[in-house]
């Protein structure tokens, strides 16, 4: 997984920005929380990992965080950032970790299956299948 600096393409204007498939944002959020983070850190991490190719409102990340907390997959507490600012930190619960593993597995299997079918047609060029 290559780490690149975020050179932030503007969502919506970017030629190859993709709308996020429903449900995947929750999974990405869980993935982001490999270490406790606050909301902006989660947002920034996903932008960085996707190289800005995923298109979503920042508020959607917070909704995902609240939703996951409600389900008991995350827990939250107030903490202080490196610059001494108050921030709400989120961390995975054991239940959340388990959920991440199984759901990742499931989504990967699903997308690989779909990709394999799509690739099997030699005349078709699917852009999304590259990653």
């Amino acid at each position: 997984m290559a780490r690149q600096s975020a050179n932030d393409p503007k969502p919506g204007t970017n030629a190859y920005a993709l709308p996020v498939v429903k449900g995947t944002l929750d999974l990405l959020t869980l993935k982001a929380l490999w270490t406790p983070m606050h909301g902006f850190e989660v947002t920034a991490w996903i932008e960085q990992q996707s190289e800005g190719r995923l298109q979503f409102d920042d508020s959607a990340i917070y909704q995902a965080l609240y939703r996951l907390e409600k389900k008991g997959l995350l827990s939250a507490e107030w903490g202080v950032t490196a610059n001494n600012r108050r921030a709400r930190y989120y961390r995975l619960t054991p239940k959340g970790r388990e959920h991440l593993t199984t759901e990742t597995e499931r989504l990967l299997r699903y997308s690989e299956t779909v990709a394999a079918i799509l690739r099997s047609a030699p005349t078709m060029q699917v852009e999304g299948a590259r990653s």
Partner: protein
Amino acid sequence: MRRSIRRRARDTIRPGVRRLFRLPIRRKDLCEQDVREEIRLHLELRTEQLIAQGMARAAARAEAERRMGDTRSMRHEALARERRLSWCEQLGDLGRELQWCLRGLRRSPLFTVTALLTLTLGIGATTAIFSVVDRVLLSPLPYPDPERVVTIREHNGEGRPSNLGFATFSDLAADSSTLASIAAYRPWVPTLVGDGDPRLIRGQRVSPSFFDVLGVQPAIGRGLVAADDQSGTERVVVISDGLWRRDLHGDPDVIGRTLTLSGAAWTVVGVMPRGFVSLSDPTAEAWRPLRYDVSQAWACRACRHLSVLGRLNPEATATSAASELDAQIKDLATAFPSAYVDPGVEVVTLHRQITRAVRPALLLLMGAVVVFLLIACANLTHLLLARGGARRGELSVRVALGASRWRLVRLHVIEGLLLAFGGGVLGLGLAIIGRRIMLALAPPDVPRLHETQLDGTLLLFALAVTTAVGLTTGLLPVLGRWRVPWKGLAGAGRRVTATRRSVRATLVVAEVALTLVLLIGAGLLLRSLGKQVQEPLGFAPDRLLTQLISLSGPGFRTSEDFHTFYGRVLDEVNALPGIVAAGLTSQLPLSEDHDGYSIHFESRPSDNPEEAPGARRYAVSPGYVETMGIPLLRGRSLDERDDADHPGVALISAGFARAVLGEQNPIGERIRLGGHDDGPWYTIVGVVGDTKQDSLTADVAPAVYLPLEQWKFNDNLVSLVVRTHSDPQAQARPVRDAIRRADPDQPVTRIATMHELTLRSAALTRFLLRLFQAFGSIALVLASIGIFGVLAGTVVERRDELAVRLALGARPESIRSLVLRQAVLLTSIGIGLGLVGAVALSRLTEGLLYGVVPTDPATYAAVAILLFGVGTVAGWIPARRAAGTDPVAILRRM
């Protein structure tokens, strides 16, 4: 500033810690504040990021806000999260509290078992009694619009309701605007000759609209129609589902088949639906047309032997129907003055009519069982209080750690409910068993008793009782504690506040009072039963076996046939070993037989035949009076010479003779039965003692005894009475076989010893008595446990004080009497209150007692003394223990 610090302090507490200390869940405004703060930080960080990438501050800020998007749904999501978390937290708490209670109950098995047992008895008994009350008194009859089915009865001269004569019935039926339909019926007891033994079945002779009145039509075939009621047409019968399945093997082509009933062929035209019950005779299995017409002698207006049912029009009520029919019958009385004396009509719903006899008894029982449940509750509260004392340490720690009042209350309520539900489940089991026992004990004439079942209503009732008990018993101990200062809880362990002790004393007083009420009920019923059983019957009931024989079929046409059969039966039975004497009678005392005639004395002719005195007619074999042990007071008895070829003779009961003839010697007087100007004359040859006929509690019945062979009709239902040397029950089979030898086709039923008939006559009292005894004795045990518990607890709690007293020179006897005095005091107050309560409730037993007034002083005194004795004994053991306190050991420990 300080406020925000405080807030920060609160909010930075980790959720786990927050839960541990039971801090409140964040409120809505705090939650929204969190969201605002998160957004602000996000926007700040994003703006800084964009500036670092080279944007101008204003543009960066705008871009950050654009990327943020809509924040309203964020807030919504945050609130949903809080709600959900708070629910989870509460549920988690509840789970933990349940576990805590369960652990506590497991740790003290003696307490748990006692509490569950108490609750099981209380809830089980209440549910079982309610199941009967619900079915018999509350649930509607199984007919469409059941409240519109009414019984119609006539008032006769004395104002007592009676049945109707056919002529009156057909006049009322002719035009009524309040009744949609009206039907008359009378009992019919045919002999069914089928595959097996001939047997008597119960049926009803009904007018054609009978099934319309009930609103139920046959499931197969048709009901009865007007044409069936014409004499000379084919004999048709409608049968019950049970008879169809059992005796006709559920034959699908049953319509048109013939049944042999009492020697005649009847064509089946209909089969009633499964589950149909004719509640005017729940055992009826066949219905034939009434086939009366006004020209018949037995259809007269004064021949009041038909029961009448009606179905009200939708807009009519029982009252409006009564006033309409009342007016009609008054018109009839003007037209036929000789047939009516002071006429009137009574209309009540069928439901009321059939439950009339048992309603007060069932209500009394319901009252008793509620009292019983209260005692059980009081006892459980006791146990919980005593336990609360033992668990003070544990609770003190909770209070010290900041548990709120509400949380302690909740713990108690959960514990109460937990116990109550355990008791409720067990109680339902007990109710199912109890229901069986009650079915076995209950008098046979409780309508619809066997329909009782475990249904939704009953479960709901049990649930309601259980919840109420759980809440009450859970809350009472806490309420008792309310006034106790909280720091008292955390304080030194053993000392118990006066408040709580007085709560427990109050409970004991209540228990004693309620127990007294139950025991007085039991005592009154016992006295009443004793009075009934001791009531002189006028004959000797010991070692007397009775059987009912019904005669029908082609072999019985002439009176010769009947008399030959009677003779053969008596010969066969008398030939058996172990028989002292045997006799036959057309009606048997205490057996619900009812056969009365108006009697005309030759020396006392009356102008108005309606005013002739009535008496029971007993057509008997020679030797009946001797077999029964009815004393012959004057003249001679009936013997073999008094047959059809000799002039008619009769015996008269002493009371009847005195009522009609005064002191005049009745011997030689001639009487006629029925009409005053026809029928043979019977000369009175002897006077016999009075006997009871209808029940133990009824007055002796005026009676005349005639020889069977001299009676103008043939009695096809006769009772055989046999006096045996030893146990009459053992002779039942040989006697029945002897009757079979006389004629194998005649069914023998109602085999019972006279002792059994006596008991059956007092069945309702015995039923009530047994239940009261059961409730009363359990209540007595519970109350004595209560007294014992309170005093034992007091002795333990006051141990220090008692030790000091002893050390200062108090004698053990004075310590003992100190404790004993308390037992006596509590019991006495309870007894006093109970006596007042019993007098107040005595109205409930009205009509259920015989020979004893509801405020019978002897019963009250006996029960009070019993309870006082039990209370003193229950206090004796703790008192002795108190006197045995070793002051040195205790003072050393202090």
